[in-house]
Each structure stands twice: as structure tokens, then as C-alpha cells.
């Protein structure tokens, strides 16, 4: 596969960012619905919330699987260092994701109260813990982790739970909750819909507070995550798009245009991930304190040939994936109605 002068390392940096952004936009609302799950009270409300994500959550989670696979293939050193270094965090993430998946599947299969309560807690707890851990991992990657001269992680599990990563973790939970609330607004009707409408403002406010604190903390304590913006002031326009998109959410909700609120939320996520990617580039994992050991798109990458083969695979596969993903969302459009196949 020959892609001429194309910078394949940068291309794969972008593609992996796109995969993880896709994951955040899609599974983000699944996790958000999960985080909100215990706030709904009746069994019917909970079933409607579950069935709002019912047909699509499985496909959404594949974005994480494929993102992980792509990271393994394109930047095996990052994959190896991060996964072995964040060992316990990833094991916890796996257990949370398993519990969540199984809870969705099994909750409504038996009518007993204790049975449903148990899986409700599993679903909600698993969703919150997964969102939190994903945020903590992102926070650590931005803050920087100790890496030795072999490129191996040299820190400890507790060292990963610093205040900044925890802050990013909480912000991620808030972001997903807001996103999930807007999504469930699109999929519900009647009293539940009105109830959710009341929650949206709380979610947006919770997110804006977290976001403001994160921004200040980043500017004050993580200056390298704002360095590129300081050097190129026009990049501030991305941050502006981000803020406008978030500000637009309550406006659209107020006018009852749920779908446009959801698009705004997606735009805000794209802008956030875009900023994160721009500030990280060309690093994939920052080494802190010894920045010379940072894993970059060059020292952590697979060979030029593999990156080329994978690009060919991606260019063939991704359009097909997008086509049927859109068709599936189209088939399952509209408000949730419970029937005998429902969760």
C-alpha cells in the first residue's frame, strides 16, 4: 500500500482521535443514561431508559474495542506501556464494562424486585465507574506519567489518582450525564420526558462548573496543555466553538428542539477532543518529569508499511461501517415503545 508523501504517523494520530471521539459521542450517551439510571424511580421508567439505548449500545462499545485495536496496531508501544502501567485501572474498567453489559442484558429477564434492583445498581455503578476511569486515564495522559528510559511506566496505581486526573474523571462523568440526558429526551415522551427536561439544566450546570474548574486547573497547573494555543491564538476559535456549543444546549432545550441540543452536545465533544489532540500532538503519552521519554507518534509507532496497510483497511471498512450505523439509527428512530422483545 503506497500513500506517497502522506505523513502516516500523523494520519493515524488523527484516525485514533476520531475513533475515540466517536466512542465518546456514541457510548458517551449510553454511559450517561446509565449514570442517570438510579434517579428514575418506577420500573417502567427504567425500562424505557434502558430501551432508549437498547439496540445501539453494543455497537457503540465497539468503537472502544476498535480504538484499542487501532492503538495496538498503529502505536504498539503506547498500547503496551499504558495498558501494563495502568494495570489495575484497566482491570477495574473491564469489570465495570462487563457488569454494565450484563446488567443491561439480564435486568428485565426476571420480574423479582431484588433481581432488578441488583442489576440496576450494577448498570448504574458500572456506567459511572467506566466514565470516571476513562476520564482519569485521559487526565493522566495529559498531566504526564513517569516513564523510564525503556519506555516503561515507572509509577504506581495510587500515583495515577492525582487531583487533576480525578478532576478530569468527574468532568467526564458530568459530560456523559449531560449527553445521556439529552439523548434520552429525544427517545422519551409523556411524564418521563417532562421529568428529564427538568434534569437537563442541572446536568448542564454540573458540567459547566466541572468544565470551568478543569479549564482553570489546566491553565494554572498543566501549562503544556495550553502551550500550542498560546503560540497560535487562532486556535482559540476551537475553544470558542466549544463554549458556544455548550451555551446553545439550554437554548435549544428551552425551544423544545431536542435533536439540535444533541448535535450541539456532539459538537462540544468534538471541539473538546480536538483541543486535547492538538495540545498533545505529536505526543501520545507525556512523560513527567523526564519529558525526553515521552511516547510520540514516531518513537511508539508501527512500521510505515503496517500503517499503510491499516490505512487501506480503514479506508475500505469505515465507509461501510458509517453507512450501516446511520441506517441502524434510522431504523430505530423515534420514541421508545416497550414490547415483548424489549429489555
Amino acid at each position: 500500500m503506497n500513500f506517497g508523501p502522506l505523513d502516516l504517523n500523523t494520519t493515524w494520530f488523527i484516525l485514533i482521535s476520531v475513533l475515540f471521539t466517536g466512542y465518546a459521542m456514541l457510548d458517551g450517551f449510553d454511559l450517561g443514561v446509565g449514570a442517570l439510571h438510579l434517579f428514575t424511580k418506577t420500573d417502567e421508567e427504567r425500562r424505557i431508559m434502558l430501551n432508549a439505548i437498547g439496540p445501539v449500545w453494543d455497537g457503540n462499545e465497539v468503537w472502544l474495542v476498535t480504538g484499542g485495536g487501532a492503538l495496538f496496531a498503529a502505536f504498539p508501544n503506547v498500547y503496551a506501556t499504558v495498558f501494563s502501567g495502568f494495570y489495575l485501572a484497566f482491570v477495574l474498567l473491564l469489570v465495570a464494562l462487563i457488569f454494565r453489559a450484563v446488567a443491561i442484558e439480564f435486568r428485565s429477564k426476571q420480574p423479582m424486585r431484588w433481581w432488578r434492583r441488583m442489576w440496576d445498581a450494577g448498570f448504574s455503578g458500572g456506567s459511572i465507574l467506566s466514565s470516571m476511569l476513562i476520564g482519569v486515564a485521559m487526565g493522566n495522559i495529559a498531566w504526564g506519567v513517569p516513564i523510564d528510559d525503556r519506555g516503561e511506566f515507572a509509577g504506581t496505581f495510587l500515583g495515577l489518582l492525582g487531583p487533576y486526573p480525578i478532576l478530569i474523571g468527574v468532568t467526564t462523568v458530568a459530560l456523559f450525564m449531560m449527553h445521556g440526558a439529552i439523548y434520552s429526551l429525544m427517545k422519551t415522551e409523556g411524564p418521563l420526558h417532562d421529568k428529564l427536561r427538568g434534569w437537563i439544566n442541572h446536568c448542564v450546570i454540573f458540567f459547566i462548573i466541572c468544565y470551568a474548574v478543569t479549564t482553570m486547573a489546566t491553565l494554572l497547573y498543566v501549562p503544556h496543555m495550553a502551550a500550542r494555543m498560546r503560540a497560535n491564538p487562532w486556535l482559540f476559535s476551537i475553544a470558542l466553538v466549544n463554549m458556544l456549543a455548550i451555551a446553545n444546549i439550554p437554548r435549544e432545550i428551552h425551544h423544545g428542539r431536542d435533536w439540535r441540543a444533541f448535535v450541539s452536545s456532539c459538537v462540544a465533544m468534538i471541539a473538546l477532543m480536538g483541543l486535547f489532540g492538538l495540545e498533545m500532538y505529536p505526543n501520545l503519552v507525556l512523560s513527567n518529569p523526564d519529558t525526553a521519554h515521552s511516547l510520540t507518534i514516531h518513537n511508539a509507532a508501527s512500521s510505515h508499511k503496517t500503517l499503510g496497510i491499516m490505512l487501506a483497511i480503514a479506508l475500505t471498512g469505515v465507509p461501510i461501517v458509517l453507512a450501516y450505523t446511520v441506517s441502524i439509527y434510522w431504523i430505530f428512530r423515534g420514541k421508545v415503545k416497550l414490547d415483548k422483545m424489549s429489555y
Partner: protein
Amino acid sequence: MDVLTLSRIQFTLTISFHYIYPLLSIGLGVMLVLVEGLWLKTRKPIYHQMARFWTKVFALTFAIGVATGIVMEFEFGTNWATYSRYVGDVFGSALAAEGIFAFFLESGLLAVLLFGWDRVGRKTHFFATCMVCLGAHFSAIWIVVANSWMQTPAGFHIVGEGMKARAEITDFWAMVLNPSSMDRLFHTLCGAWQAGAFLVVSVSAWYLLKRKHQEFARGSLRLGLMVGLAASLFQLVSGHSSAQGVAKNQPVKLAAFEGLYETTPNAPLTVFGWMDEQNEKVIGPKIPGMLSFLAHNDTAEPVAGLREAAPQPKDRPPVNVTFQLFHLMVAIGFGMILISALGFLYFWRGSLFDKRWLLWLLVLSVLGPQLANQAGWFAAEVGRQPWIVQGLLRTSEGLSAVVKANTVLAAILLFSAVYLLLFAVFVYLLNDKIQQGPEDGDLIPSGKLALPMREGA
């Protein structure tokens, strides 16, 4: 225990649990395509009822397959980081292809298969079923290709030295079509088809014994027996061809499979027995010349023994374990042919439903493919030891450099608890579905499916 042993225990635990489910999904996927295809063709409501019932069972196996599958992907990085760095360049493109072509396809269209009954037309639904089945098969292709590359590496060169050495791809298709990949893929798929078919056979036979849902059970049993018999016969062919490949490409593994220490023409086949690894002796009945004939189609051709193929005991796999696992798999393989042939014969004669002993045997037959698949996979992996990538990287060299034994132990305990719970829930819900049985309401299609079929709908 050291990190190596613990990491191997963790991988064994998680892979053998995971390996139950994708095989059932692949096999049941084929059954779903068949029943739904038959429904479209014949319009008989019984096929619709069968499709609806087996879809529910399929959903159950699929959910656990996905949940336990993510663990496998993550474990390469968490426990086997050095291995991941070593093979990432080669192995990675197969894994990426698996994500893009297989996982998206199956989990995306699964939505239509499970929840689309009343939302899309018959043909669209059938298309979704076919795509889910195809996606499940694709996922087997890429993972078996990657594993086969670990057995018989091809299409690569080694770059760098010492700790920095890694395999880089030179020829993508030589990597994909490495010497063992197609044989092993077919072998794995046959095992999956058996797993699905015999689950259908088992549940149907149980209904017949209990005199419940008889029409449904007869239809399912007939189809299950046909697919089961066909897959078991294919399995014989593919097993033979796979073993000939092992004889050619991995002589140490073959010698361990067959418990052969001395290189000899007219090599005997040990039917069953026990390895005395200390004295390098095999105790058990032998058929002279049979191994040479099976491996090379010629009794005069010598088969390499362990003493020649791996003179140093440190280069050998645990011989007795490999031998026993391999023989267990082969024995069950022949057993499945016998059981399905008997079932088929009496079904054809019309007297199967009176033979309660045979129906009970068919109920138990579901365990056969499961045991054989596990034993076969174990034999293939244990037989490759001490290598993680045959001849290139030892298992002990593939570990994560920074992970401590206690951490792995904690993960093992956590996974064991979660998987025990999962398995209990799976068995409970599967039993629940079987007890409930197919619904009579499913004899009448509803929603869009009830509409008369239009062209192109």
C-alpha cells in the same frame, strides 16, 4: 507464584471462559440463517417460531461473548506488554481488521436481528441475520489468523536487537495466509458449527423426552442433526489436514500430541495411554505405521520424535498434558460423528422418538463440542510452549515488565468472582428460556413481518 505462572493462569481462565460463547454465536448464527431462510422460502409458521426462539438463545450467548471478549483484547497490553511490542506491527493489522470488518458488522446489525422484527420487512431482517452470522465468522477469521501467525510466523522480518527487537510485516498476504491459518480457521469454524448445532439438538431432544413443544422440537432436531453431522464429518477432514500441517510446520508439537520420542519410519499411533516424561516412555496400545501414514500418507516416511525435534527438555512442551488433551479432542470428535450418525439414522427411519436412551444421549451431546473445543485449543496452545511466538519469542519473555505478582493475583481473584457470577447467571437464564420454550404467539408473525411480501421489500 511468579508473575509468569500467574499471568498464564489469568489468560487461561479468561480465554477458556470466553471461548465458550463466540463458538455458540457462530454456530447458532448459522442455525438462525437456516431457519429464517427456510421460513422465507416455505412460509411455514413453525420456522418463524424456531427463528424467534433460537434468536433469544443467541442473544444470551452473544452478550457474554462481547463482554468477555474486551478482556482478551486488553490483556495483551496489561499482562503481555513485551509480547505486544514484539508482535504489534504484525498482529495489529489483523486485530484492526477484526474490529472494522467483524465487530462493527455483528454488533451493529445485531440490533436489527433482535429488535427489528416489527420494524423492518422480512428480507431486510433476513439480510441482518445473514450479516450478523457473517460478522461472527469474520471475527473468527482474524483472530485465528493472528493466533496461527504465532504458530507458524510468515511474511515478516525482525528489526532491532535485544529488548528492542520486534517483528515487522513484509508481506501482508503471506502473514494472513501463513502455513497454518486456513487449516486452523476451518478447524475452528467446524468446532463452532458443532457447538451451535448440538445445542439445538440437545434442547430439542429434551423437549421430545418431556413431550413438550413436539412439532417445534422435531423441526429443530432435524435441522440440528443435519448441521451437526455435516460439521462433524467436515471436522474429521479438517482435523486430519490440520494435523498434517502440524507435522510439517511444528514437529515438536506433533511429537507431543502423539507422544513420540524416537524419530522412526513406520511410526506407531498410540491410541490412548500415559506419558512417562521422566524415562521418555509411552505406555498404551499402539497401531504400527499408522502415525507415519496419517502424517505423510506413507508408512515408510519417518516422523520426527521429541529427542530429535527438541533435544533440550527446556524446548519441549509439557508432553503428557499435550498428549492427553489432543487425544481427548480426537476421541470426542469421533464420538460426535457416531452420535449424530445414529441420531440421523433413526430419525430417517422414524423411530428416533421411541428410543429414549438415544434421546438422552442427544441431550448430553451438547457437552461434546464444548469439551473438544476447549481441549483442542488447550492442546494447540500448550503444544506450542515454551514459545509464545513459535521459534521467535518465549512465553517467559513476553510478560509485562512492570506488573507485579500480587497485582496479577488480585486481577485473577476479581475475574474469577465476576466470571463465576456470569456463568451462574448464564446457566440460570438459559435454563429459564428452555423451560419457557417457544411461544405459540410466534406462530403468527406480527408487525411489518405480517404484511404480505412485496418485491424489493
